[in-house]
């Protein structure tokens, strides 16, 4: 053996205890009734089950596929039926349960169809790697690193050395020793195959500690008698033996011993051109590729003084520990604790039913004498033995202090992450400090801190993004609000600029007109506004009431009550305003009934005050057309005998409309543009009264005759007006007005004629007899109202603004009294109109309040 050995720095010599398990031959463990196959038997992502409960599976059938590149498949270890896929106890130091596929074996142990390959060395590397991956092989030395990943080193680092690890340095364990003795030929063949897959590295070394002379002899024998034609490249393979020392079997340690190279901190062996595989893995690869057998069994050392029999056994992966232990005569009472793995790096098995997995190289069941409980930890005396023992050249003492202080920065500065957790430091510690446990905990904390840091960075990003999004939304809202405000201001300015300069703002009628007009600019908006105001007021009133009722002290109560009352008043105010507005909206439509037609007509007439004669004429035209329609309808509905009169009325209306149209064209001719005339004509104060009269007549008229009479009246009044106008008109307007007067006179004549014709056609004598009386009565009432209105108008015209207001207040008060009376009467009779009366009364009261406030 010419191979140079680089002695391991540090390390310890614990009692080997390997003889116990080497006394008996390798056993073949029976197939248990149930196999429990954890989905995570390797490092990396757990495999994903591809079978369902109830599926029949054969030995070697893949039951879970690798989930991503850093994963390994799981195969059924024997034939049977999948009975469960659920969490079961698994060999893990946490004691947590993991997902497992449970197979009830049928005992037949039938294989899936396998493809054997006579000459695997002829296969392409990719094909070989794929088969390794499909066979679910993971490092069988104990770590469980997916082998396929390890065999595909980064392209940047060519592999010049392949090392097969047959060191098995941990006490008690002899599984690899037995394997090397029994399967030395396959190890050599597998080794050559691995070399082939890695591109024939120059150095192929099989490292074995010198405490396994039989294994070394077997390997040497295989090397000597195997033919180079059967195993290509066998000449390059060397078996290297070196002095026994714990932990020579660590990957980095073995590399250092055999090559003198050190794996960089945080790096992989592949970075320095080295690949290292366990002997067990090597055999598994050979089996998988040569015979098509996926990884379904392994050799496990079952050892400890609580067993009647100790030794190695070839066991199916997934066999429950309890089943194997029973075969070896396990005495639970004698057992101090069950350990998966060796005494140095193993962990307490949390559950005796946890299965043996791909990485289970040993099941240790020591007696109390054999493995007494650890001594209680004492204070560190700074002896420095741990630093001498550390095979990774770390400073365990310093790490211990920093771990206690949770000083992660210094722990990392002292390369805690290079600790292989071999336990050499704890083994030599005279104070029995469980050093490894400190390191494991600190490593976990550092990893957690890294994850937390990543998460907190992501959180910050999310938070900042959210802030930005909210800000942007707010800015957009603000911009919209500003735009709306601007638009509103522009609209306001427009509205302010609208009234003609000639109009007298001091005139309360004109002001009211402007208000009405402004309101009518956009009735929907106005309505919405009023409704909003009302809702606000009522909400405020409600909350005030609640508060008032909840108030404790009298003082508070009084205060709150006052507030509540105030809110209520405001609410009523808003309500009346809303009702008022709604009514004014309604009154603009002709079809609406009203309990006060004269009032309504007056308001309408006042509205018209602001209109130019042309607009007035147009309005009249509209209303006439409306009336014509109605009259036509009525004519259609009327009895045979009334039809004549109706038709006459219709004819008359048609005539009137055509006249009006003429008038409009005339007016258009005289007035070149609308708005030229002053909106308030001193003469037009008469006009509302006339209109009121006409309206009243229209409301009250019940028969065509009356209607005709009312038209006559209105025509007459219009004639009067026109004549007045004519008297006061300018010279250039005179001809047009003169024609208008002439036309009106003509119309009056026709209407009078019509009336005469209509009266005799009424065939009911009683009706015809009573009609004139009714007409007279109505005419009396109407003329009384007209007279009153005229009087008022005259009085108003002569009054100062204060007096006018006074008069208005007076009249309002009177009207309120009347309305009150009406309401009382209605209530006494339980009339249907109570609500309407109430509303009217409220409205009046409101108006009064408004006036008084002014």
């Amino acid at each position, binding site marked *: 053996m010419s191979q140079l050995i680089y002695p391991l720095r540090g390390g310890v010599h614990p009692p080997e205890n390997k003889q116990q398990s080497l006394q008996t031959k390798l056993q073949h463990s029976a197939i248990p009734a149930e196999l429990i196959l954890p989905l995570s038997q390797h490092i990396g992502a757990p495999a994903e089950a591809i079978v369902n409960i109830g599926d029949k599976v054969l030995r070697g059938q893949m039951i879970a596929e690798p989930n991503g590149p850093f994963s390994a498949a799981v195969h059924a270890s024997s034939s049977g039926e999948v009975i469960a896929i659920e969490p079961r106890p698994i060999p893990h130091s946490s004691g947590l349960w993991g997902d497992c596929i449970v197979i009830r074996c049928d005992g037949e142990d039938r294989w899936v169809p396998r493809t054997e390959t006579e000459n695997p060395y002829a296969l392409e590397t990719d094909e070989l790697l794929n088969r390794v991956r499909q066979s679910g092989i993971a490092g069988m030395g104990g770590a469980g690193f997916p082998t396929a990943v390890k065999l595909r080193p980064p392209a940047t680092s060519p592999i010049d050395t392949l090392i097969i690890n047959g060191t098995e340095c941990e006490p008690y364990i002899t599984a690899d020793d037995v394997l090397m003795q029994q399967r030395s030929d396959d190890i050599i063949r597998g080794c050559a195959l691995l070399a082939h897959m890695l591109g024939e590295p120059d150095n192929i070394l099989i490292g074995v500690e010198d405490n396994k002379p039989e294994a070394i002899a077997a390997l040497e024998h295989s090397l000597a008698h195997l033919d180079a034609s059967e195993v290509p490249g066998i000449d390059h393979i060397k078996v290297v033996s070196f002095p026994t020392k714990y932990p020579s079997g660590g990957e980095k340690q073995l590399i250092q011993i055999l090559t003198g190279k050190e794996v960089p901190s945080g790096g992989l062996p592949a970075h320095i051109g080295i690949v290292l595989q366990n002997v067990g893995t090597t055999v598994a690869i050979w089996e998988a590729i040569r015979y098509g057998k996926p990884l379904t069994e392994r050799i496990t050392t079952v050892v400890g003084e609580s067993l009647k029999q100790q030794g190695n056994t070839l066991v199916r992966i997934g066999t429950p520990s309890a089943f194997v232990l029973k075969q070896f005569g396990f005495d639970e009472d004698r057992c101090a604790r069950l350990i998966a793995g060796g005494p*140095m790096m193993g962990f*307490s098995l949390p559950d005796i039913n946890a299965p043996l997995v791909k990485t289970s190289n040993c099941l240790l069941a020591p007696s109390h004498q054999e493995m007494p409980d650890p001594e209680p930890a004492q204070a560190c005396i700074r002896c420095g033995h741990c630093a001498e023992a550390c095979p990774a050249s770390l400073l365990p003492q310093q790490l211990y202090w920093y771990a206690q202080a949770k000083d992660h920065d210094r722990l990392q500065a002292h390369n805690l992450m290079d600790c292989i957790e071999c336990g050499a430091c704890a*083994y030599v510690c005279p104070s029995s400090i469980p050093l490894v446990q400190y390191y494991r905990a600190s490593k976990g904390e550092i990893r957690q801190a890294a994850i937390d840091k990543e*998460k907190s960075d992501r*959180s910050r990003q999310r*938070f900042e993004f959210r802030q930005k999004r909210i800000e942007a939304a707010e800015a957009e809202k603000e911009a919209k609000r500003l735009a709306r405000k601007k638009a509103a201001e522009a609209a306001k300015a427009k509205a302010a600029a609208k009234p003609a300069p000639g109009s007298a703002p001091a005139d309360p009628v004109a002001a009211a007109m402007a208000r009405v007009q402004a309101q009518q600019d956009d009735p929907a908006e106005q309505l919405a506004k009023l409704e909003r105001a009302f809702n606000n007021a009522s909400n405020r009133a409600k909350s005030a009431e609640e508060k008032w009722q909840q108030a404790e002290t009298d003082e508070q109560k009084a205060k709150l009550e006052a507030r509540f009352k105030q809110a209520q008043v405001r609410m009523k105010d808003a309500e009346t305003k809303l009702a008022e507005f709604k009514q004014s909206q309604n009154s603009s439509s002709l079809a609406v009934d009203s309990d006060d037609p004269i009032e309504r007509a007056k308001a309408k007439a006042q509205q018209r005050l602001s209109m130019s004669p042309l607009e007035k004429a147009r309005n009249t035209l509209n209303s006439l057309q409306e009336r014509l329609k109605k009259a036509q309808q009525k004519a259609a509905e009327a009895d045979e005998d009334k039809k004549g009169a109706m038709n006459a009325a219709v004819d008359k209306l048609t005539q009137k409309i055509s006249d009006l149209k003429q008038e409009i064209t005339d007016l258009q001719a005289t007035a070149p543009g609308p708005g030229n005339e002053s909106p308030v004509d001193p003469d037009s104060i008469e006009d509302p009264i006339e209109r009121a009269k006409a309206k009243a007549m229209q409301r009250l008229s019940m028969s065509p005759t009356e209607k005709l009479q009312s038209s006559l009246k209105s025509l007459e009044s219009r004639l009067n007006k026109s004549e007045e106008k004519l008297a006061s008109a300018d010279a250039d307007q005179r001809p047009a007005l003169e024609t208008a007067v002439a036309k009106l006179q003509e119309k009056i004549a026709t209407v009078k004629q019509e009336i005469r014709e209509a009266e005799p056609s009424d065939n009911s004598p009683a009706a015809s007899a009573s009609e004139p009386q009714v007409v007279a009565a109505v005419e009396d009432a109407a003329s009384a109202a007209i007279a009153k209105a005229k009087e008022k108008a005259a009085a108003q015209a002569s009054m100062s603004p204060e007096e006018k207001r006074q008069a208005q207040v007076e009249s309002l008060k009177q009207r309120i009294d009347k309305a009150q009376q009406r309401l009382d009467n209605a209530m006494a009779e339980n009339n249907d109109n109570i609500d309407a009366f109430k509303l009217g009364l409220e409205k009046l009261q409101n108006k009064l309040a408004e006036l008084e406030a002014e």
Partner: protein
Amino acid sequence: MDLSNLHPLLLALLVLGGLALLFGAILGFAAVRYKIEGNPIIDQVDNLLPQTQCGQCGHPGCRPYAEGIANGEEINKCPPGGQETINAIADLLGVDAPELDAEHGAESDIPQVAYIREDECIGCTKCIQACPMDAILGSAKHMHTVIVDECTGCDLCVEPCPVDCIEMRDVEITLTNWKWQLPSPLDGVNQQTIIASDRSPNVEGDAA
């Protein structure tokens, strides 16, 4: 004019004055050219804070608290960060690490995440508006749920829920996030009062 004819004192003054001007110009240029935007301490402190944005410190988020610390505020007001964060900030600022101020809440050993009992959720979106992490998914009148990976456990969503269907749950320990715990410290009472011969045989320790 020949400089050597000048009085040595004047010459020295001239040279020193010239040097002062030169260095002043260099420093002035450097101050403008290499100006650092904002206070770097704020960023560094913000980096150490846990970014739960929970507001337990009295600030509306972690960065405002970092700004507060940069302006001399106490560093022990962050319960989610706990003593470790306090230590880290103390280390950064070169001050003694104080204990966590209990007024702002207690440090919890096990991280928590919000959990919405989905059967009870009425879909009001109040919690979504409260979540500083955008970690709650859902829309009006539809059931909401928490994206566990993004939840920082700030519990700001618990209070606004009108039907009380949100609760804080400990993060479940799984095989992937399980980690070893530190052994109980040596100076604990138990360790001092017992000697090797009278301790219980059941006390577990490391395999070694």
